Structures are given as C-alpha cells and as structure tokens.
C-alpha cells in the first residue's frame, strides 16, 4: 500500500511540478502572478484534443503544434494585459490576468462545450513492479514530463537567452544596466511558460479529462507548490511539486480523502507565515 501511494504521489507530484514550472518562471522574471495560467493549461489540453481529432494525428505530433499556439497566446496576454501594468501596483496585474481568466474560460466553453473529454494517448496496459500497479500511459506521461523538464534546463542553462532570463530574475535593473533587452527576455519567459502549461494540460487531459473548467485546480495547486518551493525558483517548483504531490496522496490515503486539499492549503499558509521565501527561494528583499 505504501509503495503504491508513493508511486501515485510521484505521478501526481510530477504533474504539479510541471504546472508550477511555467508559473514560477513568469513570477521570477516579471514579478507577476499570472491568474490566467490555469486557462492556458486548459486550452492546451483542448487544442491538443482538437488537433488530434480533426487532423487525425498522434498525440506526440499534436502536442508540439499546440505548444506553439499556446506560447503565442501567452505572449499576447503579456503584451496586451501584463506589460502595461507590470510596474504598477501589484493589484492591477492581478485584475487584468483575472479578466483574461474569465475570457479564456468562456472561449473554452464556447468552442468545446462543458462535457469532459478524454485525450487518448494510445498506450494500453498496465505495468506491475512488485506490489505497485501503474498504467503504461502514466509511465509515458511521467517520462514526457521528465523530457520537458530536461529541455527546459538545457534552455535555461546552456542557451544565452536562458542565462539572460536568470539574470533578469535575479536583478532586473542590473540586467538592464548591462544591456540585456529585458522586454525580449520576459517575452521569452512567457513563451516557455505557455508551452509548459500547454504540455501539462495535455498530459492531464490524457491522465484524467479535458474540459473548460479544468484550469482552476492546477492554478491553485501551482500557487501552493510555488510558495512552498520558493517563488521564482525552478528547482523549488520541481521539488515542491513532488513533495506536495506526495503529501497530498499520503494525507488523502491515510488521513482523509475529503480534507486533503485543506491540508495542502494549510501547508501553504504555514509556509507563508514562517518561511515566506519557501524551500529554495532567495531571502526576500524589498
């Protein structure tokens, strides 16, 4: 039982980690909490589904295409609703991204209706590793996530623009002072974040279901993970995601399934009160 819960927790945790990565990237670079993030996740799932249905293509062919689409949408959101208010009171960016949330959700309902759909990845069968039962589909999904995370790391640590991104996240003024084009860097962050959200959404659509209201919970969970791991920290998002996934699975299994979300939120509150910078976050400056 314990090992099964462990496995389930790790699968859930990697989903949470993937959700949180894009979210924390934007916060790190733009200091903005993107309330519309969950809707990018949702549209990623639905667009992938539609591409597969109408173009009769495989999941792994549809996914890169939808990632490009969502990345573009993400940049549009940045330019139209985030960039104008980024430097002002934090409340304004919250308000505009919340507005985008509503609009995108309606778009989802309008084009796809409210019924949940399944995205079929095409792998059937179940693997049995000792006492642990896990579907092949889940294993492939986790493998996909790992690949995406590795690619992300390569981008951020090998490519020049990735280094620029980290520089802007650490010190925006300093980055500008040495001649980095901050705006382009932030655009790049939104591109990557959108692509990550899309992939996470599509994978959740495979493992669970895709429907227009699916963005709400991942958004909230992304908050928790990112607070826990440290706002703006990528290792924090990954470790935080896995830890929260495990905590949630274990409290759900051993204590109470109904109240597991309550525990998760209480953890977030506790972290905010006692260690606001999270596990890996930098100590807060003003």
């Amino acid at each position, binding site marked *: 039982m314990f090992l099964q819960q462990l496995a389930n927790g790790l699968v859930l945790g990697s989903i949470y980690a993937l959700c949180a990565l894009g979210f924390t990237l934007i916060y790190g670079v733009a200091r903005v909490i993107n309330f519309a993030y969950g809707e990018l996740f949702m549209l990623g799932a639905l667009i992938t589904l539609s591409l597969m249905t109408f173009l009769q293509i495989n999941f792994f062919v549809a996914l890169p295409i939808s990632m490009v689409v969502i990345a573009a949408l993400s940049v549009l959101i940045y330019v139209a609703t985030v960039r104008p208010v980024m430097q002002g009171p934090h409340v304004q960016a919250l308000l*505009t991204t*919340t*507005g985008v949330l509503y*609009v995108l959700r309606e778009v989802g309902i309008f084009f796809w209706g409210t019924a949940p759909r399944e995205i079929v990845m095409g792998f059937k069968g179940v693997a049995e590793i000792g006492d642990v039962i896990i579907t092949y589909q889940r294993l492939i999904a986790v493998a996909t996530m790992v690949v995406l995370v590795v690619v992300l790391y390569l981008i951020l640590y090998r490519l020049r623009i990735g280094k620029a991104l980290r520089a802007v996240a650490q010190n925006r003024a300093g980055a500008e002072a040495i001649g980095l084009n901050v705006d382009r860097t932030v655009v790049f962050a939104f591109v990557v974040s959108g692509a990550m959200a899309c992939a996470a959404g599509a994978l959740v659509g495979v493992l669970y279901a895709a429907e227009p209201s699916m963005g709400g919970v991942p958004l909230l969970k992304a*908050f928790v993970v990112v607070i826990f791991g440290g706002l703006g920290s990528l290792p924090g998002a990954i470790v935080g995601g896995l830890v929260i996934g495990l905590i949630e699975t274990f409290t759900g299994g051993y204590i109470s399934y109904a109240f597991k979300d309550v525990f998760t*939120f209480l953890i977030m*509150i506790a972290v905010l009160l006692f260690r*606001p910078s999270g596990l890996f976050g930098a100590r807060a400056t003003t």
Partner: protein
Amino acid sequence: MRLATAVVLVALATVAPSFLGDYQIYLLSLTVLWAILALSMGILLGYIGEINFGQAAFVAISAYVSTLLRQDLGWSFWAAAPVALGVVVICAALVGMITMRLRGPFFVLVMLAFGEIVRLVLANWQDMTNGPLGLRNIEPPEPLFGLTFDSKLSFYYLLLTTLVVCSMAIARLVRARTGRLFIAVREDELLAEFVGIPLMRHKVIALCISAFVAGLGGLLMGPFLTVLAPNQFSVFASVDMVVMVVVGGVATIAGPILGAVFLIYVPELLSFARELRPAIMGVMLILVTLFLPGGVLGWMEPVLARLPLLRHAAKSGGKQ
C-alpha cells in the same frame, strides 16, 4: 455623492418596486444583495488597497452559522444574526492578525487559501453542513416589531435598508478620523507608520469592518435564495465582488453599488448577455484596469459635474 442625488436614488429604489412584477423585484433584490457584498470588498480595496479573494468565506461563515442556528437549534433570525456576525468578525480579526503583515501577493494568496479552506470544510463536513448539497428550505426572517418579511417586496425593503444604512455608516467613517487614517495607510504605509499610525491595528480593523458588511450580506443571502451551498462561495464569488468594485469605481461608496448594477442587473436585462456574462466581466475588468482606473464612476465624473443637480463632490485622489 451629493446628498440630493443619493436621496433621489434611494427614493426611486423605494418607490419603483411597487409598480414592478415579481421577477423585477427579485432582480432588484439580487442587485442590492450583491451591492452589499461589493461594498464590503470596496472597503478593503478602496481604503486599504488589498484584494481579498477569500471574501466569500466571510459571507459563507455568516450565512451558514445563522442558518444552522435557526434550523438546528430553532433560534430566531434576529437572535442568530448578532451571533453569526460576531463569529465572522472574530474570524476576520484572527485571520487579519496573522496575515496582514504579509506583503502584496502573499496576502492575496493566503486569503485565497483561507477562502478555499472554508469552502472545502463546508463541502466536506457532512454531519454539520450537509456537504455539497447544502442547506435548503431556509425560511424568511421572523416578524420583528410588527414588520413581516414573508413577501418578496418586504424582503427587498429589508435589503435596501441594510444597503442604505451601511453606505451611510461607511460614508461617516470615511469622513471621520478613522477613515482618513485608512487612506493614509493605503497611500503610503511606510510614511503612515512613521507618523505614528498603528499600521497593523488599522489594517485589521478595516478587514473586520469589511467582514462585518460581508457578514450582513451572508445573513440575508440565506432567506433570499432559500438555499445555501458551498459552491456559491468559491473564489469566483469573491472575484465577482472585486470586478464590481473596480468597474464601478474604487475608493468610492457609490462605485461598488454601481458595479453591482452593471454586473447583475444589466446583464439580466440583455438576455443574450447571460451566457456571455463571465466573458463580458473579464473584458470589462481588463479594460477598466488598463484605461479607466477610476472605474465607470471616475470616468463619468467630469460629465456629471456639468449637470447642476448631480454635481459630485470631488473625491480625494480617486485612485485605487
């Protein structure tokens, strides 16, 4: 808002329903109820400068406590009301003392978490709250001082009276010393603290007042809708309140009320807008934040100032 304008509007609101059918009265009542809730958010957003995505939790606590006292223990509405309000204010004080020290986005997230926790507890504590199905068959308030509240019209007057009294009280508060202290805190926290204003105390007091008004809304919500369910108190309910305040006009009293009219009353009149309501709300939120920081009221003010009868008193700052 000039006294004359306010009196005229209140008079209109009082007299109009006598000529309107049941559906219109229901619609007006719903608008007034949301105006009360929006007003509660307006206190926080306009005068302290913070969004509370967990505001719906205060509404829920008041609604559930009062209804459970009435249904399970047989209390009268008028006995349950002060108890429910007391519970809400105490919760707000506790939450406030813990969270008010957090900066910007962190405060928002904690209040969001608080809101979600309350909703989840209400949805899962089957024994107490009947879980997701919620509480049903909620009766109108018992008669008081010879006034009955059974009919839709009489309940509408109860709602309207609550709204008017709250607005007046808040108007008094804003002009008084406490109100000006709130504005000082909102404008520049560091400076306010420097000149000796006890920061935390005032922020917590503002949260408690805001919660109290939200609690009033919650009290009236039960009998009005006759059904209470946890999914009515999600983050989106709090966001609705925020949208009303921002669109109507932040840092004013008429603003949230106007926002409620725009977002509840107007869409119902335009039936095609019903399905699109969230999208319209979203678009309005974006446009208003980007282009009309003072909300519709702020935008209309120069126009209204030209009309002698409706001349508005200049609002200090008028920014969020």
